[in-house]
């Protein structure tokens, strides 16, 4: 019988706050300080986007994710698409091709059927586009006033993509950091769609399955891919800080090489936000051995939706555990993990 010793609980906050779900430092504290010691025992490996589990000799990848978004529908997609693509992407960046999803709905009493139907159709379409089967699910209904109309949880299972073997331990100094496309589209689209800031722009969420791009990368350079992550809540800065922390090395980012649309830049300048902290739902980061970086980039550029991929930085000895952003003129700044939710500022 397996027993896992429960490690010391290091989470000291007296209550759960919104920040604990924002994907940044507070989220890490909750996971590392409460969930991990109780659930994963005293020597957990660095937590990735999916778990790789051995079932009678077959290695499968397993993941789960919950989707909570307001408004439910926004330019470029809806909660249904996020729910499918998000889980497919978590599996993809862990090096696995999603085979099947199961879905769990928590619905608010009073939700109009046509809204529910629209989301279920969106999920079906997204699953078809992603090449994944929705194999089953569960539904619960809660009282009016709870669940913000609906919460969706998807869990996914998949088999490992041959040729890929990724982990923070595989990352080396000199490795290049690739980004699949422009940052911030999703987070800014949502912010604008809420309507509270009275801003308009031609922006859409970037929600999509990144599996085709990941497979193209695997086919082209295979074992040269050392690490991947999808920069969702908390943005590119948070994902790369997690990497720096997990591998104990430093990350150097060249600001001018990070692809970003004008409108995202405009909204960030106006509101005083850092685009590196804004959520993405259709992008991924890959750390690739330097000598294969060009081939990796070419493979992405050749794919539909991969045209804007770029090499945005590299791994270095220093500053160990941190991410440093440099400018063309020689200035630099440390960029930290997100603290709380990104808030607009006037000062």
């Amino acid at each position, binding site marked *: 019988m397996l027993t896992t010793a429960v490690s010391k609980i290091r989470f000291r906050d007296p209550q759960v*706050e919104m920040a604990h779900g924002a994907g940044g430092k507070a989220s890490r504290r909750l996971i590392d300080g409460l969930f991990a010691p109780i659930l994963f025992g005293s020597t957990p490996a660095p937590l990735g986007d999916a778990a790789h589990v051995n079932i009678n000799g077959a290695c499968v990848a397993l993941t789960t994710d919950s989707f909570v978004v307001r408004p439910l529908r926004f330019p470029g997609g809806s909660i249904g698409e996020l729910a499918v693509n998000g889980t497919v992407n978590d599996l993809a960046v862990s090096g696995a091709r999603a085979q099947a999803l199961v879905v769990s709905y928590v619905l608010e009493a009073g939700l109009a059927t046509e809204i529910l139907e629209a989301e279920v159709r969106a999920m079906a379409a997204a699953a078809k586009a992603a090449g994944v089967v929705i194999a089953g699910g569960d539904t619960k209904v809660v009282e009016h006033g709870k669940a913000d109309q609906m919460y969706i949880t998807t869990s996914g299972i998949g088999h490992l993509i041959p040729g890929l073997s990724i982990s923070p331990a595989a990352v080396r100094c000199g490795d290049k950091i690739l980004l699949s496309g422009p940052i911030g589209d999703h987070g800014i689209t949502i912010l604008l769609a809420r309507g509270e*800031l009275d801003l308009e722009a031609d922006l859409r969420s970037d929600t999509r399955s990144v599996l085709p791009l990941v497979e193209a990368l695997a086919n082209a350079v295979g074992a040269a891919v050392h690490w991947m992550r999808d920069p969702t809540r908390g943005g590119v800065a948070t994902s790369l800080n997690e990497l720096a922390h997990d591998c104990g090395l430093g990350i150097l980012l060249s600001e001018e090489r990070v692809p970003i649309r004008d409108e995202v830049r405009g909204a960030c300048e106006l*509101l005083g936000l850092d685009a590196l902290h804004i959520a993405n739902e259709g992008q991924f980061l890959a750390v690739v051995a330097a000598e294969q970086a060009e081939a990796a980039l070419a493979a992405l550029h050749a794919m539909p939706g991969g045209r804007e991929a770029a090499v945005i930085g590299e791994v270095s000895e220093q500053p160990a555990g941190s991410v440093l952003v440099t400018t063309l*003129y*020689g*200035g630099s700044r440390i960029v930290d993990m997100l603290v*709380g939710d990104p808030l607009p500022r*006037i*000062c």
Partner: protein
Amino acid sequence: MRYVDEFREPQLITRTADEIRRLADPQRHYRFMEVCGGHTHSIYRFGLKDLLPSNIELVHGPGCPVCVLPMGRIDDGLSIAEQPDVIFAAFGDMMRVPGTRGSPLEHKARGMDVRIVYSPSDALKLARHNPTKHVLFFAIGFETTAPSTALTLMRAKAEGIRNFSVFCNHVTIIPAIRAILDSPDMRIDAFIGPGHVSTVIGCRPYGWIANNEGKPIVVAGFEPLDILQSIVMLLRQMNDDEKKVENQYKRVVPWEGNRGALKAMAEVFELRPYFEWRGLGFISQSALRIKEAYSEWDAECRFSVPGVRVTDPKAAQCGEVLKGVLKPVQCKLFGKECTPEHPVGALMVSSEGSCAAYYSYEHRKAAQLTQLTGAAC
């Protein structure tokens, strides 16, 4: 011309940085204070300190309206919002600032109706769309922001919108600069002047700094080239032993200021006899309150406000950091009890507070980077 990228042009930045190195006298140590928190933020965000020679020291000033707000005022605003059917509306900057019983966001988690607004006019819009509620707008900012609050109050009065009031914490910049110059520990050589405040008050109000106090001051914009060019201008003044007010930010700052904005402020606001500034103590004639003609929209008249003074924890050295006497890293709580995640003082919360800027952008760079920048060339 988009007026942003042109002032971030890398070649021009490099050239201006070279000029700074050429002008800086190696025998001197220059201490320039940037008054405005927005400049502090720009300096860190663009990594401008990396471009300056080691004998130019930038000292962060108290021009951060969130940082200088005493905790008691936050408590007062939140206590009004605790009443039923009140919506607390404020800029994003305020949302994580700790009051005695938590920040506005923490109050929101406990059920208070808290909304982030980008503009005071958005707060007035909330009032129009929520006739059964009262919208309390927690106003902060120096003279850059006060005219917008003033105009919003004028509109509220003109439209007869009664379910709206302003809790006014606007402060003025000149007394803050005076407090710096009057401080016995003060060793500032020259000032990088607040560019956006100056779009309202113009450049004349700084005359006494140059003429009476003998310190050069250059009113500066916020892009990298603006700040670097201002440093060039300060160095030239100091090398020529000149002391005058100069306007680097000509494309936006009129020497005489904005008459319309000043008129709106005069219509709605008057100076409080005194106001407490966090870290700087009570300063006379340094803050604005709403005139009697608009008292119906003055939250301090509509509601009773506890007005309790809350002193900062003894160990927190916010005051000395605000005055530029201490660097953030020299405060005993910095990075330990006081971090952006659990801030003790407002300088760690506000995105332009020098402690937050230093913590997020700088302190882990440290000595490790000397090898790095060597290799990068």
